[in-house]
């Protein structure tokens, strides 16, 4: 087969449509869930598509726009099908109830498996292990897709977007959200979500706070929260007990790259996703990646954009187009945590996406090539919760060497 796309969320579907439009026909989307749409299926709030379609859509509405295209174009997809393995030579092993365990040899592969939430264990919170502790996404699924309430009085740890959205959702469902605690001195979510999901409902956001202990034998009965110092260590004496029956965790998303590892793809230590060039091609030729499997996005609009690049470039790869007229590595100063892409191998206009590691005001992003400033962008405020982008013009891309991304700011 020419192209296999792993994952039928917004990234996978956009990539498939783009590849189709670039002429690929012998292709297939593989999705483990029982329907296309990925995580958007459970995101019934609106706020999707503002950039791309100029209107506020709900998650399922946004997904439907692409699902409709996939179906109209007749792009084949297999549901209830889990990919078990990808080899470096692009042999894919998958399983489903109808076909059993089967393999497909592909010319090109697009990885679009999305991400997963960081669980409690990773935080090592002391205390008991009662019912009532969920990741925010699991709670979202229970409420929005199954119609059940995980609890009635809630503390949320972490101010990631799903946590903020769930603070509002649980409140609307009649639960009391007692606090959202955030370890960092700033929120990891979008500013608009803080406004619309917390402030509008008078839910307190406690920055520089964490949950230090969990209580309750069978069902959660309360948590103890404490302030943390600048090294993020709990300050003794600041503990406060909050009775609650539910603790939701929104403490970070991790790109799902178990399959990428089996394919021998180099992963970035910062994003947790593959290292890619401007085409979203990984270090294994013919394997591309897009969406949250590559780096965690805050807006689905950017996912679609990135996926289109991957789809189009995968199509070019299949028909044998190999453009390589540069070999440039993108480096960052640490204030900028990472860039995607991490490499540029072709001189074309490249949108470089990045995230910062802290909140900065009066920021200026400078890009240097061999000590020469080639691009610069000012921004009143940058924050870890919001992805940024800077365009590098093709004529400014060197043949080789480094592009250095630096952030100047007052902090």
């Amino acid at each position, binding site marked *: 087969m020419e192209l296999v796309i792993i994952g039928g969320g917004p990234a996978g579907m956009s990539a498939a449509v783009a590849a189709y439009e670039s002429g690929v026909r012998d292709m297939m989307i593989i999705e*483990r869930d029982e329907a296309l749409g990925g995580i958007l299926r459970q995101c019934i709030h609106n706020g999707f598509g503002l950039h791309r379609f100029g209107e506020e859509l709900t998650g399922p509405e946004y997904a439907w726009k692409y699902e409709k295209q996939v179906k109209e174009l007749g792009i084949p997809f297999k549901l*209830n099908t*889990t990919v*078990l393995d990808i080899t470096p030579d692009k042999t894919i092993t998958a*399983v*489903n*109830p*109808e*076909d*059993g*365990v089967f393999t497909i040899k592909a010319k090109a592969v697009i990885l679009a498996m999305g991400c*997963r*939430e960081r*669980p*409690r*264990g*990773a935080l*090592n919170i*002391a*205390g*008991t*292990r*009662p*019912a009532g502790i*969920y*990741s925010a*996404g*699991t709670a979202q*699924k*229970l*409420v929005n*897709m*199954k*119609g*059940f*309430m*995980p*609890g*009635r009085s809630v503390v949320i740890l972490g101010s990631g977007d799903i946590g903020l959205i769930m603070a509002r959702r649980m409140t609307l*469902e*009649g639960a009391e959200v007692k606090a959202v605690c955030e370890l960092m001195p700033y929120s990891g979510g979008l500013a608009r979500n803080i406004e619309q999901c917390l402030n509008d409902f008078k839910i307190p956001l406690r920055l520089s706070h964490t949950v*230090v*202990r*969990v*209580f309750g*034998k*069978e*069902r959660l009965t309360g948590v103890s929260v404490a302030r943390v110092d600048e090294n993020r260590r709990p300050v003794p004496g600041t503990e406060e007990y909050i009775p609650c*029956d539910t603790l939701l965790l929104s403490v970070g998303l*991790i790109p799902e790259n178990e399959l990428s590892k089996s394919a021998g793809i180099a992963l970035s230590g910062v994003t947790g996703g593959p290292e890619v060039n401007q085409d979203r091609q990984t270090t294994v030729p013919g394997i591309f990646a897009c969406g949250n499997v590559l780096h965690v996005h805050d807006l689905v609009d950017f996912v679609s954009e990135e996926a289109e690049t991957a789809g189009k470039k995968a199509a070019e790869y299949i028909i044998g187009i190999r453009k390589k007229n540069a070999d440039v590595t993108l480096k960052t100063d640490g204030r900028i945590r990472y860039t995607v892409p991490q490499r540029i191998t072709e001189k074309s206009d490249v949108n470089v996406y990045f995230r910062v590691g802290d909140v900065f005001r009066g920021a200026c992003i400078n890009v240097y090539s061999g000590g020469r400033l080639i691009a610069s962008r000012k921004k009143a405020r940058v924050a870890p919760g919001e992805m940024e982008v800077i365009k590098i013009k093709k004529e400014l891309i060197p043949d080789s060497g480094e592009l250095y991304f630096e952030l100047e700011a007052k902090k």
Partner: protein
Amino acid sequence: MAAEGIAYYDAAVIGAGVAGAMTARELSRYDLKICILEKENDVAMGASRANSAIVHAGFDAKEGTLKAKLNVKGSEMMSRVAQELGVKYKNNGSLVIAFDEKERSMIEKLLIRGNNNGVRGLRIVEREELRRIEPNISEKAICALYAPTGAIICPYELTAAAVGNAMDNGAELLRNFEVTGIEKKDDVFEISSGSKKISARIVINAAGLYADKIAAMVGDTSFSIHPRRGEYILLDKECGAAAVHTVFRTPTEKGKGILVTPTVDGNLLTGPTSVDMTDKEDKSTTDDGLARVKRETSESIPSIPFAKTITSFCGLRAVGSTGDFIITSPVRGFINAAGIESPGLSASPAIAEFIRNMLLEQGFSLKLRKDYNPVRPPMHGFACADTEEKNRIIKENPAFGRIVCRCERVTEGEILEAIRRNPGARDVDGVKRRTRSGMGRCQGGFCSPRIMEILADELKLPFEAVTKSGGASLMCVGKTKEGR
């Protein structure tokens, strides 16, 4: 004879931990009507759920003690038992490392003790060989006691399999049956749990932390049990290779010292701490304890990547007041298997045999059953099958082609099997322990709603009645506005 209207059994085993489970399995070889009484909603909810999962070689316990004798014997039996029960078992060997000359003299003493206990193949390995066989070991370790017979096993898998095998051979499991009273009437014991009552001629007290309470019900107050906390940190499978052997620190009087070990499922396990407690129900972890686990295990193996922690948990050791296993019979037909602290898991097959022999000595006639089958097909049969076999199974039952837990790749077929097969899972944690679903990186984030659905369907429960681990541990509290 038993009073009318009360179910009668030849033998009642109180406690479905590994000791009770193995004993029930041993007794199920004979023509006996057996029940296992368990206060929780599932088997292996006590010490047999949360421990180091080590089949100890047998060099720790003092010469001449029951602990020493039954450990060495049990450890010899374990590989066969594991095979019969289809339980994963790996003979990875263990090391007790010494950091200085004082510790060297300690492990030399252990070597002598082990030899006296009858442990095979013990020897001291010096720095260079140690580094070769355990590549990530600390530079500071000067030598180690090597025990080639040391092994690892999954304790709750072993317990569930032993109970399952006993049930396949006719034993009954009564859950949520917390024994609250025992009355001896002629030659039978009437055992009650609140208003529920059964009677039995033989009673095995394998109630773990509560064995003292049960013994007192027949007037035996010769011992007491107190809990000793042990906290652990479990790491991702990515880290499983950080240790090859089970690596112990030199023991102290409180226990075997903190260890680092691979698990049979390929994770890395670090712990336990050792803190005396009073509350037998307090299984909480503490900041101090977890910090200590990290600190001390990092001294043994400096490269442990604690950032890849999956979960932490706490187990309570049932420490007996005599210092040894307490396997005694205060009244004919009533046998204590108490104070079964470490190496109780390792010793469990030998404990079961020992108890059977006591019954024989007391004049109970045990007639072998003709149809007894010691074999239980493995729970992880599907996972271990080759592609051809998997496809055959999927064709027969498509549920095996539907992956529910993506991290551990557990199929719907395996989850259904875990619920349907003896002793069937009744709650989310029960499914988790049997199938490993929810034990991987995402800790059930993705699959728990689906598992709740399957449980509700299979057990014919409303969705909101599904629990995490029985009792009041409800996963949900009701319907949403729209769902109502």
